[in-house]
Protein backbone atom coordinates (compact mmCIF):
# COMPACT_ATOMS: atom_id res chain seq x y z
CA UNK A 1 0.00 0.00 0.00
CA UNK A 2 2.62 2.50 1.11
CA UNK A 3 4.86 1.59 -1.76
CA UNK A 4 2.11 2.29 -4.24
CA UNK A 5 1.54 5.73 -2.83
CA UNK A 6 5.19 6.73 -2.95
CA UNK A 7 5.52 5.43 -6.45
CA UNK A 8 2.42 7.29 -7.62
CA UNK A 9 4.47 10.33 -8.67
CA UNK A 10 6.73 8.47 -11.07
CA UNK A 11 4.51 5.86 -12.70
CA UNK A 12 1.66 6.63 -15.09
CA UNK A 13 -1.68 6.67 -13.27
CA UNK A 14 -3.23 3.79 -15.21
CA UNK A 15 -0.38 1.36 -14.53
CA UNK A 16 -0.47 2.31 -10.89
CA UNK A 17 -4.20 1.64 -10.65
CA UNK A 18 -3.67 -1.71 -12.34
CA UNK A 19 -1.12 -2.66 -9.77
CA UNK A 20 -3.34 -1.59 -6.91
CA UNK A 21 -6.25 -3.52 -8.34
CA UNK A 22 -4.28 -6.73 -8.72
CA UNK A 23 -2.85 -6.33 -5.24
CA UNK A 24 -6.33 -5.85 -3.85
CA UNK A 25 -7.60 -8.85 -5.77
CA UNK A 26 -4.74 -10.92 -4.41
CA UNK A 27 -5.57 -9.84 -0.90
CA UNK A 28 -9.24 -10.70 -1.34
CA UNK A 29 -8.41 -14.12 -2.75
CA UNK A 30 -6.04 -14.73 0.16
CA UNK A 31 -8.78 -13.82 2.62
CA UNK A 32 -11.29 -16.11 0.92
CA UNK A 33 -8.77 -18.97 1.03
CA UNK A 34 -8.05 -18.25 4.68
CA UNK A 35 -11.73 -18.22 5.61
CA UNK A 36 -12.26 -21.44 3.65
CA UNK A 37 -9.41 -23.15 5.51
CA UNK A 38 -10.68 -21.94 8.90
CA UNK A 39 -14.25 -23.02 8.13
CA UNK A 40 -13.22 -26.45 6.84
CA UNK A 41 -11.22 -27.11 10.00
CA UNK A 42 -14.15 -25.94 12.11
CA UNK A 43 -16.58 -28.25 10.33
CA UNK A 44 -14.19 -31.16 10.80
CA UNK A 45 -13.59 -30.49 14.51
CA UNK A 46 -17.16 -29.66 15.45
CA UNK A 47 -19.07 -32.26 13.41
CA UNK A 48 -18.81 -35.09 16.02
CA UNK A 49 -20.50 -32.90 18.58
CA UNK A 50 -23.21 -31.86 16.18
CA UNK A 51 -23.78 -35.57 15.55
CA UNK A 52 -23.97 -36.17 19.30
CA UNK A 53 -26.57 -33.42 19.69
CA UNK A 54 -28.65 -34.71 16.75
CA UNK A 55 -28.46 -38.29 18.02
CA UNK A 56 -29.63 -37.20 21.46
CA UNK A 57 -32.91 -36.14 19.82
CA UNK A 58 -33.39 -39.41 17.91
CA UNK A 59 -34.76 -42.85 18.66
CA UNK A 60 -32.22 -45.68 18.69
CA UNK A 61 -31.54 -47.72 15.57
CA UNK A 62 -32.08 -45.08 12.90
CA UNK A 63 -29.50 -43.50 10.65
CA UNK A 64 -28.87 -39.76 10.74
CA UNK A 65 -30.66 -39.29 7.42
CA UNK A 66 -33.89 -40.51 8.99
CA UNK A 67 -33.88 -37.73 11.55
CA UNK A 68 -37.36 -36.38 10.76
CA UNK A 69 -38.92 -39.84 11.10
CA UNK A 70 -37.06 -40.71 14.30
CA UNK A 71 -36.91 -37.43 16.19
CA UNK A 72 -37.99 -37.55 19.82
CA UNK A 73 -37.54 -35.79 23.14
CA UNK A 74 -37.75 -39.06 25.04
CA UNK A 75 -33.97 -39.41 25.57
CA UNK A 76 -33.83 -36.10 27.39
CA UNK A 77 -36.92 -36.90 29.45
CA UNK A 78 -35.38 -40.26 30.36
CA UNK A 79 -32.10 -38.61 31.25
CA UNK A 80 -33.66 -36.24 33.73
CA UNK A 81 -36.25 -38.61 35.21
CA UNK A 82 -33.93 -41.60 35.50
CA UNK A 83 -32.07 -42.07 38.79
CA UNK A 84 -29.32 -43.80 36.78
CA UNK A 85 -28.03 -40.36 35.79
CA UNK A 86 -29.51 -37.92 38.29
CA UNK A 87 -28.17 -39.53 41.49
CA UNK A 88 -24.65 -39.60 39.98
CA UNK A 89 -25.08 -35.97 38.96
CA UNK A 90 -25.65 -34.99 42.59
CA UNK A 91 -22.56 -36.96 43.66
CA UNK A 92 -20.49 -35.28 40.96
CA UNK A 93 -21.68 -31.81 41.95
CA UNK A 94 -20.73 -32.41 45.59
CA UNK A 95 -17.22 -33.57 44.63
CA UNK A 96 -16.74 -30.69 42.21
CA UNK A 97 -17.92 -27.99 44.62
CA UNK A 98 -15.74 -29.24 47.46
CA UNK A 99 -12.66 -29.40 45.24
CA UNK A 100 -13.27 -26.02 43.65
CA UNK A 101 -13.19 -24.55 47.15
CA UNK A 102 -10.28 -26.48 48.66
CA UNK A 103 -7.84 -26.87 45.77
CA UNK A 104 -7.05 -23.15 45.17
CA UNK A 105 -6.58 -22.53 48.88
CA UNK A 106 -4.55 -25.64 49.60
CA UNK A 107 -2.23 -25.04 46.66
CA UNK A 108 -1.80 -21.31 47.27
CA UNK A 109 -0.92 -21.95 50.91
CA UNK A 110 1.85 -24.37 50.00
CA UNK A 111 3.01 -22.24 47.10
CA UNK A 112 3.38 -19.29 49.47
CA UNK A 113 5.86 -21.32 51.45
CA UNK A 114 7.92 -22.11 48.35
CA UNK A 115 7.75 -18.55 47.00
CA UNK A 116 8.07 -16.33 50.05
CA UNK A 117 9.57 -18.12 53.04
CA UNK A 118 13.04 -19.45 53.81
CA UNK A 119 13.57 -22.80 55.45
CA UNK A 120 16.08 -25.58 55.26
CA UNK A 121 15.04 -28.27 52.83
CA UNK A 122 12.70 -26.02 50.88
CA UNK A 123 14.34 -26.59 47.50
CA UNK A 124 14.55 -30.33 48.07
CA UNK A 125 10.89 -30.51 49.08
CA UNK A 126 9.92 -28.51 46.01
CA UNK A 127 11.90 -30.82 43.74
CA UNK A 128 10.39 -33.91 45.39
CA UNK A 129 6.95 -32.40 44.91
CA UNK A 130 7.55 -31.72 41.21
CA UNK A 131 8.90 -35.24 40.79
CA UNK A 132 5.52 -36.66 41.84
CA UNK A 133 4.19 -35.51 38.46
CA UNK A 134 6.29 -38.31 36.98
CA UNK A 135 4.74 -41.03 39.13
CA UNK A 136 2.09 -42.81 37.07
CA UNK A 137 -1.41 -42.81 38.54
CA UNK A 138 -1.66 -46.57 38.16
CA UNK A 139 1.23 -47.11 40.56
CA UNK A 140 -0.46 -45.31 43.47
CA UNK A 141 -4.11 -46.14 42.78
CA UNK A 142 -3.80 -49.71 43.98
CA UNK A 143 -2.29 -49.02 47.44
CA UNK A 144 -4.62 -46.07 47.85
CA UNK A 145 -7.54 -48.36 47.06
CA UNK A 146 -6.32 -50.68 49.83
CA UNK A 147 -5.85 -47.71 52.19
CA UNK A 148 -9.27 -46.23 51.49
CA UNK A 149 -10.88 -49.62 51.85
CA UNK A 150 -9.23 -50.05 55.29
CA UNK A 151 -10.48 -46.59 56.29
CA UNK A 152 -13.96 -47.48 55.05
CA UNK A 153 -13.90 -44.62 52.54
CA UNK A 154 -14.76 -46.59 49.42
CA UNK A 155 -18.01 -45.54 47.75
CA UNK A 156 -17.93 -42.19 49.55
CA UNK A 157 -16.72 -38.85 48.21
CA UNK A 158 -13.76 -38.84 50.63
CA UNK A 159 -11.16 -40.49 48.31
CA UNK A 160 -11.86 -37.84 45.71
CA UNK A 161 -11.73 -34.84 48.05
CA UNK A 162 -9.57 -35.41 51.13
CA UNK A 163 -6.27 -35.97 49.24
CA UNK A 164 -6.76 -32.58 47.60
CA UNK A 165 -6.62 -30.91 51.03
CA UNK A 166 -2.95 -31.88 51.07
CA UNK A 167 -1.54 -29.41 48.61
CA UNK A 168 -4.14 -29.49 45.85
CA UNK A 169 -1.86 -30.85 43.14
CA UNK A 170 1.81 -30.35 42.28
CA UNK A 171 1.16 -28.50 39.03
CA UNK A 172 -1.15 -26.02 40.80
CA UNK A 173 1.43 -25.33 43.49
CA UNK A 174 4.03 -24.82 40.77
CA UNK A 175 1.84 -22.32 38.90
CA UNK A 176 0.97 -20.45 42.10
CA UNK A 177 4.63 -20.26 43.07
CA UNK A 178 5.60 -18.82 39.70
CA UNK A 179 2.83 -16.26 40.01
CA UNK A 180 3.59 -15.21 43.59
CA UNK A 181 7.26 -14.82 42.74
CA UNK A 182 6.33 -12.42 39.97
CA UNK A 183 4.48 -10.15 42.45
CA UNK A 184 6.37 -7.19 43.96
CA UNK A 185 7.84 -7.98 47.39
CA UNK A 186 7.44 -4.42 48.74
CA UNK A 187 3.82 -4.83 49.83
CA UNK A 188 4.69 -7.82 51.98
CA UNK A 189 7.69 -6.11 53.48
CA UNK A 190 5.51 -3.13 54.42
CA UNK A 191 3.00 -5.46 56.05
CA UNK A 192 5.82 -7.20 57.88
CA UNK A 193 7.05 -3.91 59.31
CA UNK A 194 3.49 -3.21 60.45
CA UNK A 195 3.73 -6.41 62.46
CA UNK A 196 1.55 -8.67 60.32
CA UNK A 197 2.14 -12.37 60.90
CA UNK A 198 3.12 -14.67 58.03
CA UNK A 199 -0.39 -16.03 57.77
CA UNK A 200 -1.91 -12.56 57.68
CA UNK A 201 0.55 -11.57 54.95
CA UNK A 202 -0.46 -14.63 52.96
CA UNK A 203 -4.19 -14.21 53.44
CA UNK A 204 -4.50 -10.43 53.34
CA UNK A 205 -1.69 -9.29 51.06
CA UNK A 206 -0.68 -12.04 48.66
CA UNK A 207 -3.88 -13.98 48.11
CA UNK A 208 -5.98 -11.00 46.93
CA UNK A 209 -3.30 -10.29 44.30
CA UNK A 210 -3.47 -13.88 43.03
CA UNK A 211 -6.96 -13.57 41.60
CA UNK A 212 -6.12 -14.64 38.01
CA UNK A 213 -4.31 -17.79 39.09
CA UNK A 214 -6.95 -18.52 41.77
CA UNK A 215 -9.56 -18.49 39.04
CA UNK A 216 -7.38 -20.67 36.83
CA UNK A 217 -6.88 -23.30 39.52
CA UNK A 218 -10.56 -23.22 40.52
CA UNK A 219 -11.71 -23.60 36.92
CA UNK A 220 -9.27 -26.44 36.38
CA UNK A 221 -10.48 -28.08 39.57
CA UNK A 222 -13.97 -27.85 38.17
CA UNK A 223 -13.24 -29.41 34.78
CA UNK A 224 -10.79 -32.01 36.08
CA UNK A 225 -13.15 -33.30 38.77
CA UNK A 226 -16.22 -33.02 36.59
CA UNK A 227 -14.56 -35.17 33.92
CA UNK A 228 -12.50 -37.45 36.17
CA UNK A 229 -13.12 -41.03 35.23
CA UNK A 230 -10.43 -43.45 36.41
CA UNK A 231 -10.38 -42.50 40.11
CA UNK A 232 -14.14 -42.71 40.67
CA UNK A 233 -14.20 -45.89 38.59
CA UNK A 234 -11.77 -47.47 41.06
CA UNK A 235 -12.89 -45.97 44.37
CA UNK A 236 -16.65 -45.81 43.81
CA UNK A 237 -17.81 -49.19 42.70
CA UNK A 238 -21.27 -49.61 44.19
CA UNK A 239 -24.06 -48.45 41.91
CA UNK A 240 -25.44 -45.83 44.29
CA UNK A 241 -22.08 -44.08 44.51
CA UNK A 242 -21.37 -43.58 40.79
CA UNK A 243 -20.31 -40.19 39.51
CA UNK A 244 -21.71 -38.93 36.22
CA UNK A 245 -18.66 -40.08 34.22
CA UNK A 246 -18.76 -43.54 35.76
CA UNK A 247 -22.53 -43.77 35.27
CA UNK A 248 -22.14 -43.07 31.55
CA UNK A 249 -19.38 -45.67 31.38
CA UNK A 250 -21.24 -48.33 33.33
CA UNK A 251 -24.30 -47.77 31.18
CA UNK A 252 -22.34 -48.73 28.07
CA UNK A 253 -22.31 -52.32 29.34
CA UNK A 254 -25.04 -54.28 31.07
CA UNK A 255 -28.78 -53.66 31.10
CA UNK A 256 -28.70 -50.11 29.87
CA UNK A 257 -26.26 -50.75 27.04
CA UNK A 258 -29.02 -50.59 24.46
CA UNK A 259 -30.08 -47.02 25.28
CA UNK A 260 -27.38 -45.49 23.09
CA UNK A 261 -29.09 -42.19 22.49
CA UNK A 262 -29.89 -41.54 26.14
CA UNK A 263 -26.13 -41.87 26.56
CA UNK A 264 -25.68 -39.30 23.80
CA UNK A 265 -27.99 -36.94 25.68
CA UNK A 266 -25.97 -37.57 28.84
CA UNK A 267 -22.82 -36.80 26.85
CA UNK A 268 -24.22 -33.51 25.59
CA UNK A 269 -25.39 -32.67 29.09
CA UNK A 270 -21.99 -33.49 30.55
CA UNK A 271 -20.16 -31.35 27.98
CA UNK A 272 -22.19 -28.21 28.59
CA UNK A 273 -20.81 -27.08 31.99
CA UNK A 274 -17.12 -27.30 30.96
CA UNK A 275 -17.94 -25.50 27.72
CA UNK A 276 -19.71 -22.66 29.56
CA UNK A 277 -16.91 -22.42 32.11
CA UNK A 278 -14.38 -22.31 29.29
CA UNK A 279 -16.22 -19.56 27.44
CA UNK A 280 -16.53 -17.49 30.63
CA UNK A 281 -12.92 -17.86 31.74
CA UNK A 282 -11.09 -18.45 28.47
CA UNK A 283 -8.61 -15.65 29.05
CA UNK A 284 -7.55 -16.95 32.48
CA UNK A 285 -7.39 -20.47 31.15
CA UNK A 286 -5.23 -19.72 28.16
CA UNK A 287 -2.88 -17.47 30.17
CA UNK A 288 -2.58 -20.12 32.86
CA UNK A 289 -1.99 -22.94 30.40
CA UNK A 290 0.86 -21.07 28.84
CA UNK A 291 2.57 -20.09 32.10
CA UNK A 292 3.37 -23.74 32.67
CA UNK A 293 3.81 -24.77 29.09
CA UNK A 294 5.95 -22.05 27.57
CA UNK A 295 8.16 -21.16 30.48
CA UNK A 296 8.74 -24.87 31.09
Amino acid at each position, binding site marked *: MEQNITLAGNIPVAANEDKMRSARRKRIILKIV*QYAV*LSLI*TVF*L*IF*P*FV*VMIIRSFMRDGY*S*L*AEFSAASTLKNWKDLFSDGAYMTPLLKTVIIVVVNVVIMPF*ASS*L*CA*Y*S*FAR*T*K*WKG*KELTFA*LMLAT*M*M*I*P*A*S*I*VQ*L*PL*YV*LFSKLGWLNSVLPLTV*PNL*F*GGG*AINIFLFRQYIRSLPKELEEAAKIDGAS*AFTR*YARVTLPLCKPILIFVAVNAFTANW*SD*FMSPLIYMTSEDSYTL*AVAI*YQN*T*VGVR*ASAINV*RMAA*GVFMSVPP*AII*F*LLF*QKNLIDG*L*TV*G*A*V*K*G
Partner: protein
Amino acid sequence: MSVIVQNEQNEKKGFLTPRRRRALKGWLTGFLFALPVILGILIFSYYPAIQTFFWSFTDFNGLEITEWSFYQYEYMFTIDPDIWRIFGNTLLYAFVSVPLGLVLGYFLALAANFKVKGVPVYRLLFYLPVIIPGIVSGILFSTILGGNEFGVINEILHALGMSAGKNFKFFLSGETAMGSLLFMGVWTVGGSMIIWLSAFKNIPDTLYEAAKLDGANAWQRLVKITLPMSTPMIFYNLITGIIGALQCTTPLVIDAAGITGAPGSGFDNSLYFVAIKIYNEAFGGGAYYAYASAIAWVLFAFIGILTIIIFSTSKWVFYGEED
Protein backbone atom coordinates in the same frame (compact mmCIF):
# COMPACT_ATOMS: atom_id res chain seq x y z
CA MET B 1 28.28 -5.24 81.47
CA SER B 2 27.07 -6.51 78.16
CA VAL B 3 28.89 -9.77 78.70
CA ILE B 4 27.03 -10.29 81.92
CA VAL B 5 23.67 -9.60 80.29
CA GLN B 6 24.39 -12.11 77.56
CA ASN B 7 25.43 -14.68 80.10
CA GLU B 8 22.21 -14.16 81.95
CA GLN B 9 20.21 -14.64 78.78
CA ASN B 10 22.12 -17.77 77.91
CA GLU B 11 21.38 -19.12 81.32
CA LYS B 12 17.70 -18.30 81.02
CA LYS B 13 17.03 -19.59 77.53
CA GLY B 14 19.78 -22.18 77.34
CA PHE B 15 20.28 -23.32 73.78
CA LEU B 16 17.78 -20.89 72.31
CA THR B 17 19.45 -17.52 71.96
CA PRO B 18 17.14 -14.82 70.57
CA ARG B 19 18.76 -15.06 67.17
CA ARG B 20 18.44 -18.83 67.02
CA ARG B 21 14.92 -18.52 68.25
CA ARG B 22 14.02 -16.09 65.46
CA ALA B 23 15.64 -18.37 62.91
CA LEU B 24 13.74 -21.36 64.24
CA LYS B 25 10.50 -19.42 64.16
CA GLY B 26 11.12 -18.38 60.56
CA TRP B 27 11.97 -21.96 59.62
CA LEU B 28 8.90 -23.26 61.40
CA THR B 29 6.58 -20.75 59.70
CA GLY B 30 7.76 -21.66 56.23
CA PHE B 31 7.70 -25.35 57.06
CA LEU B 32 4.17 -25.18 58.46
CA PHE B 33 2.91 -23.50 55.28
CA ALA B 34 4.32 -26.39 53.26
CA LEU B 35 3.31 -29.09 55.73
CA PRO B 36 0.09 -30.08 53.91
CA VAL B 37 1.94 -30.82 50.68
CA ILE B 38 4.80 -32.55 52.49
CA LEU B 39 2.28 -34.88 54.13
CA GLY B 40 0.38 -35.10 50.85
CA ILE B 41 3.28 -36.32 48.71
CA LEU B 42 4.37 -38.73 51.44
CA ILE B 43 0.94 -40.27 52.04
CA PHE B 44 -0.50 -40.16 48.53
CA SER B 45 2.57 -40.50 46.28
CA TYR B 46 5.81 -41.78 47.76
CA TYR B 47 4.53 -44.23 50.34
CA PRO B 48 2.07 -45.92 47.92
CA ALA B 49 4.77 -46.08 45.25
CA ILE B 50 7.11 -47.84 47.68
CA GLN B 51 4.28 -50.13 48.75
CA THR B 52 3.66 -51.33 45.20
CA PHE B 53 7.41 -51.82 44.81
CA PHE B 54 7.37 -54.28 47.71
CA TRP B 55 4.14 -55.91 46.60
CA SER B 56 5.66 -56.59 43.20
CA PHE B 57 8.02 -59.08 44.89
CA THR B 58 5.21 -60.94 46.69
CA ASP B 59 2.04 -62.82 45.90
CA PHE B 60 -0.19 -60.17 47.52
CA ASN B 61 -3.85 -60.44 46.55
CA GLY B 62 -5.35 -57.87 48.90
CA LEU B 63 -5.57 -60.25 51.84
CA GLU B 64 -2.20 -61.64 52.78
CA ILE B 65 1.38 -62.10 51.66
CA THR B 66 2.61 -65.68 51.82
CA GLU B 67 5.84 -65.56 49.86
CA TRP B 68 8.55 -63.28 48.50
CA SER B 69 9.94 -63.93 45.05
CA PHE B 70 10.66 -62.56 41.58
CA TYR B 71 7.81 -64.62 40.24
CA GLN B 72 5.66 -61.68 39.05
CA TYR B 73 8.50 -60.35 36.88
CA GLU B 74 9.30 -63.81 35.66
CA TYR B 75 5.66 -64.37 34.75
CA MET B 76 5.49 -60.99 33.03
CA PHE B 77 8.50 -61.40 30.79
CA THR B 78 8.38 -65.11 30.07
CA ILE B 79 4.82 -66.41 30.43
CA ASP B 80 2.14 -63.71 30.01
CA PRO B 81 1.15 -64.09 26.34
CA ASP B 82 -0.18 -60.52 26.00
CA ILE B 83 2.52 -58.49 27.66
CA TRP B 84 4.83 -57.77 24.69
CA ARG B 85 1.88 -56.76 22.58
CA ILE B 86 0.78 -54.46 25.41
CA PHE B 87 4.20 -52.81 25.76
CA GLY B 88 4.43 -52.46 21.99
CA ASN B 89 0.97 -50.89 21.68
CA THR B 90 1.67 -48.44 24.49
CA LEU B 91 5.03 -47.33 23.09
CA LEU B 92 3.68 -47.05 19.56
CA TYR B 93 0.75 -44.96 20.72
CA ALA B 94 2.82 -42.64 22.94
CA PHE B 95 5.61 -42.05 20.43
CA VAL B 96 3.28 -41.45 17.51
CA SER B 97 0.39 -39.56 19.11
CA VAL B 98 2.45 -36.94 20.97
CA PRO B 99 4.70 -35.78 18.09
CA LEU B 100 1.73 -36.03 15.73
CA GLY B 101 -0.28 -33.78 18.03
CA LEU B 102 2.54 -31.23 18.19
CA VAL B 103 2.99 -31.15 14.40
CA LEU B 104 -0.73 -30.88 13.67
CA GLY B 105 -1.06 -28.32 16.47
CA TYR B 106 1.60 -26.24 14.73
CA PHE B 107 -0.35 -26.16 11.47
CA LEU B 108 -3.58 -25.44 13.32
CA ALA B 109 -1.86 -22.56 15.09
CA LEU B 110 -0.72 -21.18 11.73
CA ALA B 111 -4.35 -21.17 10.60
CA ALA B 112 -5.50 -19.70 13.91
CA ASN B 113 -2.97 -16.91 13.39
CA PHE B 114 -4.45 -15.70 10.06
CA LYS B 115 -4.97 -11.95 10.10
CA VAL B 116 -8.68 -12.01 9.33
CA LYS B 117 -11.71 -10.86 11.27
CA GLY B 118 -13.35 -13.38 13.57
CA VAL B 119 -10.22 -15.41 14.23
CA PRO B 120 -10.78 -15.46 18.03
CA VAL B 121 -14.10 -17.23 17.42
CA TYR B 122 -12.41 -19.85 15.25
CA ARG B 123 -9.77 -20.38 17.95
CA LEU B 124 -12.53 -21.04 20.48
CA LEU B 125 -14.20 -23.54 18.17
CA PHE B 126 -10.86 -25.30 17.56
CA TYR B 127 -10.28 -25.59 21.30
CA LEU B 128 -13.81 -26.73 22.17
CA PRO B 129 -13.23 -30.49 21.56
CA VAL B 130 -10.40 -30.41 24.12
CA ILE B 131 -12.69 -29.55 27.02
CA ILE B 132 -15.20 -32.31 26.30
CA PRO B 133 -14.83 -34.91 29.10
CA GLY B 134 -12.82 -37.98 28.04
CA ILE B 135 -15.65 -40.37 28.81
CA VAL B 136 -17.95 -38.39 26.51
CA SER B 137 -15.53 -38.32 23.59
CA GLY B 138 -14.96 -42.04 24.19
CA ILE B 139 -18.61 -42.99 23.74
CA LEU B 140 -19.00 -40.37 21.03
CA PHE B 141 -16.16 -41.66 18.88
CA SER B 142 -17.17 -45.26 19.28
CA THR B 143 -20.31 -44.08 17.44
CA ILE B 144 -18.60 -41.78 14.93
CA LEU B 145 -16.00 -44.43 14.12
CA GLY B 146 -18.46 -47.31 14.48
CA GLY B 147 -17.27 -50.30 12.48
CA ASN B 148 -20.66 -51.23 11.02
CA GLU B 149 -23.32 -49.51 8.88
CA PHE B 150 -24.46 -47.48 11.94
CA GLY B 151 -21.08 -45.78 12.33
CA VAL B 152 -21.50 -42.13 11.39
CA ILE B 153 -18.56 -41.98 8.98
CA ASN B 154 -19.72 -45.19 7.28
CA GLU B 155 -23.22 -43.68 7.04
CA ILE B 156 -21.85 -40.55 5.40
CA LEU B 157 -19.75 -42.60 2.99
CA HIS B 158 -22.78 -44.71 2.07
CA ALA B 159 -24.76 -41.55 1.41
CA LEU B 160 -21.89 -40.41 -0.81
CA GLY B 161 -22.13 -43.61 -2.83
CA MET B 162 -19.93 -46.23 -1.15
CA SER B 163 -21.46 -49.64 -1.82
CA ALA B 164 -23.86 -50.69 0.93
CA GLY B 165 -22.11 -53.92 1.82
CA LYS B 166 -18.77 -52.23 2.43
CA ASN B 167 -17.92 -50.70 5.81
CA PHE B 168 -14.78 -49.29 7.31
CA LYS B 169 -14.04 -51.41 10.35
CA PHE B 170 -12.26 -48.76 12.47
CA PHE B 171 -12.17 -50.17 16.04
CA LEU B 172 -13.56 -53.53 14.91
CA SER B 173 -10.37 -54.74 13.27
CA GLY B 174 -6.94 -55.43 14.67
CA GLU B 175 -5.36 -53.66 11.71
CA THR B 176 -7.23 -50.35 11.85
CA ALA B 177 -7.99 -49.95 15.58
CA MET B 178 -4.71 -48.22 16.46
CA GLY B 179 -4.99 -45.90 13.47
CA SER B 180 -8.53 -45.05 14.51
CA LEU B 181 -7.42 -44.20 18.03
CA LEU B 182 -4.68 -41.92 16.66
CA PHE B 183 -7.23 -40.37 14.30
CA MET B 184 -9.50 -39.73 17.30
CA GLY B 185 -6.64 -37.80 18.92
CA VAL B 186 -6.68 -35.35 16.01
CA TRP B 187 -9.83 -33.80 17.47
CA THR B 188 -7.99 -32.62 20.60
CA VAL B 189 -5.18 -30.95 18.68
CA GLY B 190 -6.56 -27.58 19.86
CA GLY B 191 -4.60 -28.11 23.07
CA SER B 192 -1.23 -27.91 21.38
CA MET B 193 -2.53 -25.14 19.11
CA ILE B 194 -2.95 -22.89 22.16
CA ILE B 195 0.60 -23.65 23.26
CA TRP B 196 2.04 -22.95 19.80
CA LEU B 197 0.10 -19.68 19.63
CA SER B 198 1.67 -18.43 22.83
CA ALA B 199 5.07 -19.67 21.66
CA PHE B 200 4.60 -17.57 18.51
CA LYS B 201 3.73 -14.57 20.66
CA ASN B 202 6.98 -14.94 22.60
CA ILE B 203 9.10 -14.70 19.45
CA PRO B 204 9.94 -11.10 18.58
CA ASP B 205 8.59 -9.99 15.18
CA THR B 206 11.93 -8.31 14.44
CA LEU B 207 13.56 -11.72 14.01
CA TYR B 208 11.14 -12.63 11.24
CA GLU B 209 11.46 -9.22 9.60
CA ALA B 210 15.23 -9.46 9.58
CA ALA B 211 15.04 -12.98 8.13
CA LYS B 212 12.63 -11.84 5.43
CA LEU B 213 14.99 -9.02 4.47
CA ASP B 214 17.77 -11.57 4.17
CA GLY B 215 15.55 -13.55 1.81
CA ALA B 216 14.63 -16.49 4.06
CA ASN B 217 11.58 -18.41 2.86
CA ALA B 218 8.78 -19.73 5.05
CA TRP B 219 10.47 -23.12 5.56
CA GLN B 220 13.78 -21.51 6.56
CA ARG B 221 11.96 -19.19 8.97
CA LEU B 222 10.30 -22.24 10.58
CA VAL B 223 13.51 -24.22 10.90
CA LYS B 224 15.85 -21.39 11.80
CA ILE B 225 13.63 -19.20 14.00
CA THR B 226 10.31 -20.68 15.13
CA LEU B 227 11.56 -24.13 16.09
CA PRO B 228 14.77 -23.07 17.89
CA MET B 229 12.90 -20.33 19.76
CA SER B 230 10.16 -22.78 20.81
CA THR B 231 12.40 -25.60 22.05
CA PRO B 232 11.57 -25.16 25.78
CA MET B 233 7.89 -25.48 24.94
CA ILE B 234 8.40 -28.45 22.59
CA PHE B 235 10.60 -30.08 25.25
CA TYR B 236 8.09 -29.60 28.08
CA ASN B 237 5.18 -30.84 26.00
CA LEU B 238 7.06 -33.85 24.68
CA ILE B 239 7.88 -35.00 28.21
CA THR B 240 4.48 -34.37 29.78
CA GLY B 241 2.69 -35.59 26.65
CA ILE B 242 4.59 -38.86 26.44
CA ILE B 243 4.29 -39.51 30.19
CA GLY B 244 0.55 -38.93 29.84
CA ALA B 245 0.15 -41.02 26.68
CA LEU B 246 2.00 -43.97 28.25
CA GLN B 247 -0.86 -44.06 30.77
CA CYS B 248 -3.66 -43.81 28.22
CA THR B 249 -6.90 -45.56 29.23
CA THR B 250 -9.19 -44.32 26.44
CA PRO B 251 -9.80 -47.82 24.99
CA LEU B 252 -11.39 -48.77 28.31
CA VAL B 253 -14.29 -46.58 27.22
CA ILE B 254 -14.26 -47.43 23.51
CA ASP B 255 -14.14 -51.16 24.14
CA ALA B 256 -15.92 -51.26 27.50
CA ALA B 257 -17.42 -54.67 26.88
CA GLY B 258 -14.20 -56.22 25.57
CA ILE B 259 -15.37 -57.54 22.20
CA THR B 260 -12.62 -60.10 21.74
CA GLY B 261 -10.91 -60.20 25.14
CA ALA B 262 -10.47 -58.31 28.36
CA PRO B 263 -12.39 -55.01 28.76
CA GLY B 264 -10.55 -52.20 26.99
CA SER B 265 -8.18 -54.50 25.13
CA GLY B 266 -9.55 -53.55 21.73
CA PHE B 267 -10.09 -55.92 18.82
CA ASP B 268 -7.54 -58.78 19.07
CA ASN B 269 -5.65 -56.89 21.79
CA SER B 270 -4.88 -54.13 19.29
CA LEU B 271 -5.55 -51.38 21.86
CA TYR B 272 -4.40 -53.16 24.99
CA PHE B 273 -2.35 -50.56 26.91
CA VAL B 274 -0.27 -50.92 30.07
CA ALA B 275 -2.56 -48.82 32.28
CA ILE B 276 -5.58 -50.85 31.17
CA LYS B 277 -3.75 -54.10 31.83
CA ILE B 278 -2.88 -52.88 35.34
CA TYR B 279 -6.50 -51.93 35.95
CA ASN B 280 -7.76 -55.29 34.71
CA GLU B 281 -5.27 -57.28 36.78
CA ALA B 282 -6.01 -55.34 39.98
CA PHE B 283 -9.69 -54.55 39.70
CA GLY B 284 -10.95 -56.84 36.95
CA GLY B 285 -12.16 -59.41 39.45
CA GLY B 286 -8.97 -61.38 40.03
CA ALA B 287 -7.30 -58.99 42.52
CA TYR B 288 -3.83 -59.86 41.20
CA TYR B 289 -2.36 -56.97 43.18
CA ALA B 290 1.19 -58.25 43.12
CA TYR B 291 1.20 -58.70 39.35
CA ALA B 292 -0.45 -55.32 38.79
CA SER B 293 2.24 -53.75 41.02
CA ALA B 294 5.01 -55.37 39.00
CA ILE B 295 3.63 -54.07 35.70
CA ALA B 296 3.11 -50.62 37.23
CA TRP B 297 6.75 -50.54 38.32
CA VAL B 298 7.98 -51.51 34.88
CA LEU B 299 5.94 -48.61 33.51
CA PHE B 300 7.31 -46.26 36.16
CA ALA B 301 10.89 -47.36 35.55
CA PHE B 302 10.42 -46.75 31.84
CA ILE B 303 9.01 -43.26 32.45
CA GLY B 304 11.90 -42.51 34.80
CA ILE B 305 14.57 -43.67 32.33
CA LEU B 306 12.87 -41.80 29.51
CA THR B 307 12.75 -38.58 31.53
CA ILE B 308 16.43 -38.89 32.43
CA ILE B 309 17.35 -39.49 28.77
CA ILE B 310 15.34 -36.52 27.58
CA PHE B 311 16.78 -34.26 30.28
CA SER B 312 20.37 -35.32 29.76
CA THR B 313 20.16 -34.85 26.00
CA SER B 314 18.37 -31.52 26.27
CA LYS B 315 21.31 -29.31 25.38
CA TRP B 316 19.39 -28.34 22.27
CA VAL B 317 16.85 -26.51 24.40
CA PHE B 318 17.10 -22.76 24.02
CA TYR B 319 16.04 -20.93 27.19
CA GLY B 320 16.79 -17.35 26.11
CA GLU B 321 19.58 -15.15 27.37
CA GLU B 322 18.27 -14.58 30.90
CA ASP B 323 18.51 -18.13 32.14
